[in-house]
């Protein structure tokens, strides 16, 4: 009796698609598409504030450098001047590093307000409860 050689099956395509599809749906549902902030930035942590959409705002690094969308900003007034008119009147947002001296943060906010910003908001990272 001759042993029949086992037919070599291909990889299980349907199962593969299923898994990849599940991962796709997981990432689509649970993640949020956002422009990345600076990688070296560690945001201020807060616990009990309401959430908001990922920010697209000026970043203040721990050493006081300013940047917006990866490009350096010379002065807070320059950032404000680049904003549209309607955004200037409302809330202007800042993303400070958690180690930035608070005096500098207040100074930047005062400059923004002197240049015509309505309210100055700080964007923080919400801890997972």
């Amino acid at each position, binding site marked *: 009796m001759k042993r029949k050689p086992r037919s070599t099956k291909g990889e299980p395509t349907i199962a593969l698609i299923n898994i990849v599809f599940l991962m796709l749906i997981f*990432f689509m549902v649970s993640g949020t*598409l956002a422009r990345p902030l600076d990688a070296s930035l560690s945001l201020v942590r807060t616990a009990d504030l309401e959430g908001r959409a990922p920010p697209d705002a000026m970043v203040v690094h721990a050493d006081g450098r300013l940047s917006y969308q990866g490009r350096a900003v010379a002065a807070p007034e320059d950032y404000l001047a680049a904003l549209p008119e309607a955004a200037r009147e409302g809330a202007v947002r800042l993303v400070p590093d958690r180690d930035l001296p*608070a005096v500098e943060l*207040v100074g930047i906010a005062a400059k923004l307000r002197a240049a015509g910003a309505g309210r100055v908001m700080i964007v*923080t*990272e919400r801890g997972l409860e």
Partner: protein
Amino acid sequence: MTSLIDVIFLLLLFFMLSSTFSKFSEIELTAGGSGPGRAAETPPLFLQLRPGDLSLNGQNLALDALVPALRQSASAPDSAKAPRTLLISLASEVTSQRLTDLLATLRGTEGISPIILGRAPR
């Protein structure tokens, strides 16, 4: 069949690489200075923030003990009186994290309008 996998794989990679999982929130920075200089009938409170502790009107407190202490001296929330001014002075070593912690604590307190004292812009 293979082309389907390819497309789904591309989509998967796109969403994996471009999505963020961190959650954000925001709080208003009440850097005062401007505003009408109203003659207040009640004297303002003075809070000095330091990296380790803080002092309210010269009395040393921890951050947790601040809200009960403020409740006593705040004007009643439903009264017509203007909220009592709280002047916040920052020591030079205070970080943004510490200031935000204080602002988040103050946010739940009624009858207080905090003003952060900053350096004069040069």
